[in-house]
Structures are given as structure tokens and as C-alpha cells.
């Protein structure tokens, strides 16, 4: 079967000594940074990206994938032990996970999260391998109009799932699109919004925005809050393995979570986040078995289901990136940036022109998941130690990594000035309650959207109706409008608010 041939190619690439090592290093570094409270996967990847510059492209992407999974696992560890969600998708894990930790059952909670994620990761990888080729076929049929509409759908999908005001999120996307246009216009050669600064004619480096807004901005915001006494469960992690009873309850929850996560992850937008929320809601709706702990009081299903959903979604969210070249969320937007640095234009052509990279990456995703489970469960004690590192040591180190990383990207001090400016902007965003993730997504998509709009309108001789007369494009736009309407419906918008308030 072709699927297995392809996977064999992939494992052939991934199982070289060098790539295994990079995958392992990525997982370790990702977990190491991801465990630190208040640093989500976006900041982690942005911070560690410079470490991959010197590597060959395949190894660099494999390491980045490892970093991503590591950051996700690390985030759930922090969520369970410190009651502090490192990222939005582990918000629901906190509810029951922390309660389990308080009852001295942190071990089983961590194991449930780890094993559930591993299973979900395996399924997600298989789905990715199976669905990527047919979807790529579809992608080759896409014209510029379809691509443009698809990006609109993706961007709308991303804001619909974001918490907070919808209008503000849309405005942040538009702002991101505009920032993405800074630099030389590929078609006319005109340097736009560069203020005669030579460095700006190449455009703003996306690492600068990511580190400024997510790194500096967050640090300043965190520092301005008074240090609260966090309860860290260091001593109480014992008896790592879940009991037989736990397993009996966990398994159906993991299966449900995986199915839901895999399906929702493919959708553009924060699939992993929605999947985690939906999975938790479904578990809550199912009947409690006799003798089971109620939800919100430390039910193991409340940890296993959202964590599996989250990880399955994280895996399948690679599908739109690898087949269509369109990042569905901020993390994937960073992956696009990383690929471009290594001269790979993400999109349907990657699979045919670069099969080793494509299948190697997919195989290494599974490997990454396997490594994490081997790494994380025995090493949990070490990660917990990290949680006790005081923030006053942490934040100067993060500032340093950001500054070194930004300078190292282009060996240019101009980027260092720029990251400072974006740090200020990031803090302003924080103060004004606007979420920065849509901005990053818009920033990456800006030039792509303009190019596809230009081509579509050129082909139609300036007739905008091309977007609604071509069936696929019309369907995608209709889906985007539908999404917006659904969210704006009074009944749903109220529900949506509740869902985000619950944490």
C-alpha cells in the first residue's frame, strides 16, 4: 500500500542517528521551556527557532516539531501541578487536573495526560499520513480565487475560536495583514512603509514580532502583577501509575477525545483549543458511573479527554499547513516562517518536490510523541523542580534568549531595536485587552493574500464576482460567513462567553 511505502520512506529519514538526536533535543528543550509557567508554545518556538538555523532543513523541521510537542506536554504538566494553563488549550485540563493534584493524585493525572496524548498523537499521525495525499490533489485544483477564499475562511475560523471580543480579533488580523505588507512589493518593486530604512525594505522579520509581542510584552505584563503565592505540588507526586479503575474510565474518554480532536484539528482556526473544550463538555454530559468522582473535583476523564483531543488536534492541524501551505494557527504560522528561512515554500508542491522532508516530518511526529512519553514520565521529578525556579531568575534569561535569538537571525542590530518596539506594542495590546495571536497569523498570511487576490482579479479582469461564481471559492466564503453568523447569534454568543468564563 502506498501509505505504508510513504511511511517507510519517512521512517527511513527520521530514523537516522542525526535526526533522532535532533528530535530528542527538540523534545527536551520544548518541555524544558514549556514547563515554565506563563510561556506558551508560541513563545517557546519563537525563542528556540534560532537554535535550528544552522541545521539542514529536514533536521530543523524535525527539531521544531519536537519543540512543539515538548512545549505542549510541558504546558499540561504546569497546568496540572500549578493550576496555571500555559496555553489556551490546556485551560480545561486545569479544572480536574489540579484537583487531582491537590488530592495527591498528580501522578495518575500526569500519566493520563501523557498516555492519552500519546495515543492521540499516534492516531493523528496516521490520519495525517492518510489524508495528506488526497488533499494535496485537491490543492492542485485550487486557483488564486480559491486560495484567497480559503485564507479568509482560515482567518475567520481563527478569530471565532479566540476568546474575547470578535471585532477586536478581526481588527488584529487586519493589522497583522498590514504589517505583513511592509517591505518591497514583489510585483512592482516599490518599498512600502519602509521609511527609507534599508532593513525595512526586506519586510519585518516575523521572529521580531513573535518575540517582541509574545516574549517581551508578556514578561512586562507578568512583572506588573504582584507575585502571587503559587501552590506547587512538588513533594506529593508519587504513585505515578493510574490504577486499573482509572484505566477503565480513561480509555473511552481518550477514544472520544481523540476522535473529536482529530476531526476539529483539520478545521482552520484554533482547532486544538475548540477540541479540548468540546471534549471536556462531552465528558461532562456523560453519566457518572457509581463511585466516580464528579467533574471539577478531580475526575480522571476530565484530564484524559481534553488532553487527547488537544494533541490529536495539534497533529491534524499540520494537514492544512502541509497540503495547502496555509497555517491554521499561530504555531503553524511560525512553522511557515521556519520553512521559509530554510527556503521551503510550504504548499502542495512540498510533497512531490521534497518527499523526504514531507514524510520524514510526519514520521518524526510519531517519534516525537514516543520520545516524550519515554522522557516525561520518568523525568517528571526534574520538570517539577523547574517549576520552583523563581520568576526573578527566569525573566532576565527569557529577555536574553529573545535578544540573542533576534540578533542571531540576521546578525543585524536593527532587529534588536525593532523587537524592543514590538515589546512595547505587545504590552499596549495586553493593556487594551487585545489578543496578539490573530495578529501573527495575519502577518504571515498578508503577502500570500495580496498575491492571490492580485492574481484572481487579474484573471477576472478586475471583476470581484469571481470569488462567488467559482463554486469552491463560493463554498469557502459561505462557510466563513456561516461561521460568523453562528458566533454572532445571541444564543451562541452567550454560550461562547460562558465557555470562556468557566476557566
Amino acid at each position, binding site marked *: 500500500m502506498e501509505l505504508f511505502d510513504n511511511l517507510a520512506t519517512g521512517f527511513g529519514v527520521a530514523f537516522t542517528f542525526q535526526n533522532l538526536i535532533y528530535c530528542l533535543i527538540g523534545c527536551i528543550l520544548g518541555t524544558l521551556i514549556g514547563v515554565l509557567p506563563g510561556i506558551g508554545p508560541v513563545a517557546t518556538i519563537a525563542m528556540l527557532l534560532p537554535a535550528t538555523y544552522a541545521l539542514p532543513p529536514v533536521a530543523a523541521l524535525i527539531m521544531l516539531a519536537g519543540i512543539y510537542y515538548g512545549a505542549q506536554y510541558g504546558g499540561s504538566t504546569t497546568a496540572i501541578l500549578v493550576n496555571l494553563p500555559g496555553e489556551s488549550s490546556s485551560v480545561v485540563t486545569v479544572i480536574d487536573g489540579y484537583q487531582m493534584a491537590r488530592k495527591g493524585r498528580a501522578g495518575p493525572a500526569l500519566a493520563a495526560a501523557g498516555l492519552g496524548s500519546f495515543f492521540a498523537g499516534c492516531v493523528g499521525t496516521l490520519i495525517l499520513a492518510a489524508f495528506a495525499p488526497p488533499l494535496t490533489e485537491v490543492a492542485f485544483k485550487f486557483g488564486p480565487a480559491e486560495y484567497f477564499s480559503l485564507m479568509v475562511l482560515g482567518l475567520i475560523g481563527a478569530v471565532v475560536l479566540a476568546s474575547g471580543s470578535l471585532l477586536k480579533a478581526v481588527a488584529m488580523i*487586519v*493589522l497583522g495583514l498590514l504589517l505583513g505588507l511592509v517591505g518591497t512589493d514583489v510585483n512592482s518593486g516599490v518599498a512600502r512603509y519602509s521609511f527609507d530604512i534599508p532593513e525595512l525594505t526586506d519586510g519585518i522579520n516575523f521572529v521580531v514580532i513573535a518575540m517582541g509581542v509574545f516574549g517581551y510584552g508578556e514578561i512586562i505584563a507578568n512583572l506588573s502583577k504582584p507575585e502571587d503565592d503559587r501552590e506547587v505540588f512538588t513533594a506529593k507526586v508519587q504513585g505515578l501509575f493510574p490504577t486499573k479503575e482509572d484505566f477503565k474510565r480513561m480509555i473511552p474518554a481518550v477514544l472520544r477525545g481523540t476522535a473529536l480532536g482529530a476531526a476539529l484539528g483539520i478545521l482552520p482556526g484554533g482547532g486544538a483549543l475548540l477540541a479540548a473544550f468540546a471534549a471536556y463538555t462531552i465528558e461532562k454530559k456523560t453519566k457518572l458511573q457509581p463511585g466516580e468522582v464528579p467533574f471539577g473535583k478531580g475526575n480522571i476523564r476530565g484530564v484524559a479527554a481534553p488532553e487527547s483531543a488537544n494533541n490529536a488536534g495539534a497533529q491534524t492541524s499540520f494537514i492544512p499547513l502541509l497540503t495547502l501551505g496555509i497555517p491554521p494557527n499561530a504555531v503553524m504560522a511560525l512553522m511557515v516562517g521556519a520553512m521559509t528561512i530554510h527556503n521551503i515554500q510550504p504548499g502542495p508542491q512540498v510533497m512531490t518536490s521534497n518527499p523526504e522532508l514531507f514524510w520524514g516530518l510526519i514520521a518524526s511526529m510519531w517519534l516525537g510523541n514516543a520520545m516524550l512519553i519515554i522522557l516525561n514520565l520518568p523525568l517528571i521529578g526534574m520538570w517539577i523542580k523547574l517549576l520552583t525556579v523563581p520568576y526573578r531568575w527566569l525573566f532576565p534569561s527569557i529577555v536574553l534568549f529573545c535578544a*540573542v535569538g533576534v540578533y542571531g537571525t540576521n546578525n543585524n542590530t536593527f532587529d534588536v531595536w525593532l523587537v524592543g518596539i514590538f515589546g512595547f506594542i505587545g504590552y499596549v495590546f495586553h493593556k487594551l485587552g487585545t489578543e496578539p495571536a490573530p495578529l501573527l497569523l495575519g502577518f504571515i498570511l498578508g503577502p500570500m493574500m495580496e498575491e492571490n487576490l492580485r492574481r484572481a482579479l487579474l484573471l477576472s479582469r478586475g471583476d470581484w464576482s469571481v470569488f462567488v461564481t467559482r463554486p469552491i471559492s463560493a463554498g469557502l466564503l459561505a462557510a466563513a460567513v456561516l461561521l460568523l453568523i453562528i458566533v454572532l447569534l445571541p444564543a451562541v454568543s452567550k454560550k461562547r462567553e460562558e465557555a470562556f468564563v468557566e476557566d
Partner: protein
Amino acid sequence: MKIKSQKDFFSGLMFMGVGVAFAVGATNYSVGNGARMGPGYFPLILGILLAILGTAITFYATVVESADGDKIGKWAWKQLFFILASNFAFGVLLAGLPSFGVPAMGLIVAIYALVFIASLAGESFNAKEVFILATILAVGSYVAFVWALKLQFPVWPSFISG
């Protein structure tokens, strides 16, 4: 008119201002028409869209009631200043400012400066502790970035290494 959500009101104003600025800037480039988009076409559309969105956000902020007025709250000027200052000091010391005749001091000096200045943003400051932290980070960075990853950094002051 009363502001019911301070955060929304001012973020709306910000989007409005930025949108207008981008739209006005776009008119400096040739706009063209749909069939032949000039470099100003797409930014002009987006700028106008952003200004409209900003207006809408500002408008809603004066109409829709929010629970506690959504106050922006105090600005953390001290933290903001020291974090950004440490960043700028790092840049200046690392590579120097050739146009102002400031020599490059290299990575190690820059790291010490960054850690010391950044630490001033924290609640407590213990010079000895910060010194140890800076030393660990300097050695670690040298090993990781210069020795292992071979990134091109000026490591020592330019008047020593030449």
C-alpha cells in the same frame, strides 16, 4: 457620551489611527485598479477596513455596558522601562553603534548588562544573585550559541579581539 469600556474604547481609537495612517500611506503608492492592482491597492483597502473596525469598536465601547468599566489600569512604567532598556543596551554593547562611534563590546559584556538592567524590573534586586545568574547565562550562551551552534557573534570587545 460615556465610556463604558475603557479598554475597547482606546483599542478602537488605536485601530482607527493605525488604519488611517496605513490608508493615507497607501495613497503615496500607485493604487491602480482591480485588474491591475498597484502596490497601494491592498493596503488601502485594509487600512480603510481597519479604520472602520476601529470606529465600530469605539462606538460599541460607548454603548454596550460592561461589568466594571473594563479599566485599563495602571501602566507598569518601571518594568516597561527596564526590560526595553536592557534590550537596547544589549544591542548597543553587542555590536556597537558605528554611526555614533560607539565600539562593539561583544556578547559577554552585553549579557552582563542585559541581566543587570532587566533584573531591576523585578520586585527585589540582589546584586550578588544577579551577578551569579549573569555569569551562568554568559557561560551558557557562549557554549550554546558560539561554540555549539556557531552563530556569528562578536564575543569580546572589538579593541581586545581586534
